[in-house]
């Protein structure tokens, strides 16, 4: 290579290693542009969240001012009346109760399915079963709602009667019917809807357990279940929490399926069997069409509460995961 070519050949003509003089920052423009784009995309999330919160607050204030009852403790919803009387107590309680019940039913089954898929089932069986789980996740919620109301209500009613006859002394099962749309029906349908989400996420988590940790447990003389308890579950804990929280997110926000399967009754009650149950989202769906301006504002106020509940739930989950971070290699 002659001295001449060193000074005159443009950068890039000599291979990426660059035999010539160092080029002057020609690629930095694209670098800056990309960094700008990525930062902008990241900020969008914040902007959207803040915009939604602001919208909810601004729209909710007029109804909250006009409310003639205590918004937080009043159980009924007469937001179209003059003066308007409405409170979040019953529907917020119903939201949390149905979601909690759905998770209690869905999470053990979902974790069981996920462990079966990753550690017990034959590979071909596992992929077929996994396909059906994903299919379950793809069923629209209105279909679940219709199925729950028109088909599943009968069997759940019979089951409710059985529970009441044999375990009626437990307050939860004290309701003496009639057995129609109930918290039990709604939360079972909700559990079925949450199941595929928790299953597919925790399946991913379990499948990522390092083989060397599983082998370490087996080499200590662990049975398969002991190996899962020693290596798989602790390693997957942050992921399990995350998947449960995503499931809870779906459960809290689920609207149409619960509007179709709950009783739309406004009271705070632990009676799971009798006609009853309502949630914030279902209430919005059922009341929005007939709402006057104040009624609409009141519904938005209830949406603000749902927003806050979801936020608290997510932050709690983060805190739990964060507290254990040094024990999972700082990756969580």
């Amino acid at each position, binding site marked *: 290579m002659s001295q001449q070519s060193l000074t005159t050949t443009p950068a890039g003509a000599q291979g990426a290693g660059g035999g010539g003089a160092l080029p002057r920052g020609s690629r930095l423009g694209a670098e800056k542009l990309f960094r700008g784009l990525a930062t902008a995309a990241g900020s969008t999330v914040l902007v959207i969240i803040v915009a939604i919160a602001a919208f909810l607050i601004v729209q909710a204030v007029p109804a909250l001012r006009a409310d003639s009852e205590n918004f937080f403790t009043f159980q009924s919803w007469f937001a179209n009346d003059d003066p308007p009387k409405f409170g979040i107590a019953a529907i917020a309680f119903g939201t949390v109760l149905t979601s909690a019940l759905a998770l209690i039913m869905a999470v053990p089954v979902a974790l069981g399915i996920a462990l079966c898929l990753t550690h017990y089932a034959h590979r071909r069986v596992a992929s077929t079963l996994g396909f059906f789980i994903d299919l379950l996740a793809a069923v629209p919620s209105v279909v679940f709602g219709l199925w729950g109301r028109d088909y599943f209500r009968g069997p759940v009613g019979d089951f409710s009667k059985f529970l009441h006859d044999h375990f009626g002394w437990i307050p939860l099962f004290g309701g003496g019917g009639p057995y129609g749309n109930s918290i039990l029906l709604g939360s079972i349908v909700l559990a079925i809807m949450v199941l595929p989400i928790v299953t597919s996420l925790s399946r991913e988590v379990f499948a990522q357990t390092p083989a*060397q940790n599983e082998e370490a447990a087996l080499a200590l003389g662990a049975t398969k279940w002991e190996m899962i308890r*020693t290596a798989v579950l602790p390693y997957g804990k942050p992921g399990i929490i995350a998947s449960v929280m995503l499931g809870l997110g779906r459960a809290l926000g689920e609207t149409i399926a619960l509007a179709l399967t709950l009783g739309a009754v406004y009271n705070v009650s632990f009676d799971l069997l009798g006609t009853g149950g309502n949630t914030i989202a279902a209430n919005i769906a059922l009341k929005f069409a007939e709402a006057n301006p104040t009624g609409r504002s009141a519904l938005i106020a209830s949406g603000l509460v749902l927003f806050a509940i979801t936020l608290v739930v997510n932050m709690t989950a983060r805190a739990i995961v964060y507290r254990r971070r040094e024990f999972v*290699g700082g990756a969580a």
Partner: protein
Amino acid sequence: MAKRIEAVNVSAYYGSFRAIDNITMTIEPKSVTALIGPSGCGKSTFLRSINRMHEVLPGAKVDGQLMIDGQNIYDRDIDVTAVRRTIGMVFQRPNPFPTMSIYDNVVAGLKLNGVRRKAALDDACEKALRGANLWNEVKDRLNRPGAGLSGGQQQRLCIARAIAVEPQVVLMDEPCSALDPISTLAIEDLIAELKNQYTIVIVTHNMQQAARVSDRTGFFSIDSTGEPGRLIEYDDTAKIFTNPSVKRTEDYITGRFG
């Protein structure tokens, strides 16, 4: 506290591929036996068949007899978890349980065996960590994550975990290949101490290491890729490294391996 291992016509398969063919060898108690040989010669596979870890992989199986003090561990009614408790294992990469503290890592095997009493666990933890020459380095931070230790410390933690259940045999699958020379030296010193109590089988790629730590050495090799690994020569380490009786062994240890 140490048992004799007799392999009789042991063959191991991955699906239909035969990885080792008819290995027969006797490993004496309270000795260190090194298994050396080129990559893919089946020495790790053989090691993993000694505590029935080979069959953990899908499609893997073992033929033949493997006697521990006269009892075939591949007999149908043998409890595989008991086999693995009797024959501990240390892996190539340090693999402490990432979610557990140093203490919990060491006593993990004991807890699996139903030991719950705090005092018993404390004693066993200290004994195992002292046995693994790690006690002085970690005694003040037993509740810290095991994964926070250096690579060499992690490997000694894994050795402590393996010996905490007081096995008869300790298998080591290239235990130093992920470690720096200082840590390697620490592990080799430890092996020399451990052999007073345990039967030790170590797979290593490092021939100097085999020469330093072992009493007996087995040389494994394959004829060509796709062929099963065979035990070519098995003798006292001193003899293998100074005056091997098979030409292929000599070629391998002198670096003329082809």
